């Protein structure tokens, strides 16, 4: 589904990604771990198409199509979803209105009519129940005055509504207490199917107890330096990142 070949990317002439290779197949969950500043969030942004990042080399293929020239909204229309580490506030725009716009814009891009209001309401009800979201929450301005946990839950709610092919969760666990973490993880697990894929970017192994990855990759200094199964995450949890750094340095 997602194939990244020898990806080099920079921001303001500073090289951040230095040759990433990654192959994510439908139905798989991949975890990307690594110390601060290793390029995890950059990788997420580059795949989503953030314009400040310059792709210097390599390619990103989605279902075999090079998406390098596509704008972020076009990638979204093709089913790429990014759960933001720091979701932005949009005052005066309710969660419901935002979702309605997002869904209908995506449908429009596919040549479909707007989703009928009753269908939209039904979907909102189902998805908010699944994520244990209070309906009142949906009439609030997007992320304005939300707690850290609310913001993250809202990201997963949006993911549920948009039903993406490829979801990238950027540090979705940060700022969550254990109950919120469980709810969010359950939500992600319910959304998983044999046709979609999830990339979980995280610092800690904690989230991976709930969202169990098929593969774990360690990103360090702009490269994937080690890949393995979920046991690798446990090893990292126990031993930290220093041994990896040494291995790479050696």
């Amino acid at each position: 589904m997602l194939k990244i070949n020898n990806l080099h990317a920079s921001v303001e002439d500073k090289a951040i990604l230095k040759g990433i290779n990654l192959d994510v197949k439908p139905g798989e969950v991949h975890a990307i771990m690594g110390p601060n500043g290793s390029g995890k969030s950059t990788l997420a942004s580059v795949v989503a198409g953030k314009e400040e990042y310059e792709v210097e080399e390599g390619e990103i293929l989605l279902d075999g199509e090079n998406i390098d020239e596509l704008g972020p909204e076009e990638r979204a229309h093709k089913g790429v979803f990014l759960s933001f580490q720091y979701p932005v506030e949009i005052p005066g725009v309710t969660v419901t209105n935002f979702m309605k716009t997002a869904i209908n814009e995506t449908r429009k891009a596919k040549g479909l009519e707007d989703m009928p209001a009753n269908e939209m309401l039904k979907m909102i009800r189902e998805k908010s129940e699944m994520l244990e979201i209070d309906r009142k929450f949906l009439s609030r301005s997007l992320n304005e005055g939300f707690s850290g946990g609310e913001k993250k839950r809202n990201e997963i709610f949006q993911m549920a509504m948009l039903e993406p092919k490829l979801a990238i969760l950027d540090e979705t666990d940060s700022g969550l207490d254990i109950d919120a973490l469980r709810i969010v993880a359950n939500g992600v697990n319910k959304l998983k199917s044999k046709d979609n894929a999830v990339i979980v970017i995280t610092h800690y192994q904690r989230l991976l107890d709930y969202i169990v990855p098929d593969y774990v990759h360690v990103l360090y200094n702009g490269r994937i330096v080690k890949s393995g199964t979920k046991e690798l995450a446990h090893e990292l949890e126990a031993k930290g990142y220093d041994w990896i750094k040494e291995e790479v340095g050696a």
Partner: protein
Amino acid sequence: MSKYTEDDLREELKTKEYEYGFYTDIESETFPNGLNEDIVRAISKKKDEPEWMTEWRLQAFKVWKEMTEPEWANVHYEKPDFQAISYYSAPNSKPKYDSLDEVDPELLATFEKLGISLDEQKKLAGVAMDVVVDSVSVATTFKKTLAEKGIIFMSISEAIQEHPELVKKYIGTVVPQKDNFYAALNSAVFSDGSFCYIPKGVKCPMELSTYFRINQAGTGQFERTLVIADEGSYVSYLEGCTAPSRDENQLHAAVVELIALDNAEIKYSTVQNWYPGNAEGQGGVYNFVTKRGLCEKNAKISWTQVETGSAVTWKYPSCVLKGDNSVGEFYSIAVTNNFQQADTGTKMIHLGKNTKSTIISKGISAGKSQNSYRGLVQISPRAENARNFSQCDSLLMGNECGAHTFPYIEANNKSAQIEHEATTSKIGEDQIFYCNQRGIDTEKAIALIVNGFSKEVLNKLPMEFAVEAQKLLEISLEGSVG
């Protein structure tokens, strides 16, 4: 060549008078350029006005001659040459075009986006109508319903003929002739405008809108509006049109006076979309408007405005809260793009006891434009327990525009409670990217953010107007982020 003096002008005018013979019998539909007493008389005569009205205009003209154009506003423009303007041309005289094919396609595209019917498009663009339009009969039915309630709604010229006692009693009572330079000018030369009277205890059963929108197009540059809500009555009045007006008149100096008698309520909503000039800042309308309302006991006046047009805007819809317990409200969205300049806000003059005012102003600046809020909250010594809440928010797009806030507060009574909040924010690339990532393109994202920002004011507009206004905001900001 020696300097062209006023004497020369007078001389020239005299010859012209003779040439066209307009002093006694005016054939021409457009007066020669320039302004003097004779022109003022001629306007009044052309409209068959009674003597008192002519005198009133002349008085205004005398005052105007002694005044100078104000310079305190935060706007810069080349001052109009008041002797180079023609002060009368018959409204709606001849169609400008024979068919829609001749109309600027860009203008038509905008009509399309606003969802304006074909017939109305023709009317607005000044196209000759070959079919009898629905609107005519709509307007007639409308008038009938209103008449049954005793509501008077007609052009001010008609009102001067048919209800001179009402016009004479109220005109100039809220905005006196000498109020300011443009108000004085308007008082001397106003071409036409609207008049509305709601009798005691009557709630006007409809928004005075459709009718107005159709009749609005083509009215002159010096409009005069007078709305009187008698005791215990209510009216919601909609002015302007979301459709772009490609008016050739450079200068617009309108006056609007509202009078809300005891326990009456007037809701006055405006959408202003005059030609803002091109992207290089050439052309566009100078919009210098004086709007003010007077509230008697327990009365309420709400001004709601969406200002997206004009090259230069100078406008402060105000409330004089004379009666005890009266309420004044001002809700405004002002959008400036490219080289537009707006200096707009309100004055809330608290005279009565327990008077209350609310000001919510949303300024949106893009391109190289300058957008200023200027507001005065004045509490007089006898206004016990007066309260005001003001909120001024500015939204900036890009790095070349400006937002300015000039709040003036004069509290002369210790019991006054005044609150002022102000914020400035910028549409961030992060917000845009977030929207993009959810499948919303940049243009739509800006519209969404701007509508969210303006929501508190949009909510104050009558429903059908609000939808149009929302679309208008989107169109006004098109291409503002590259």
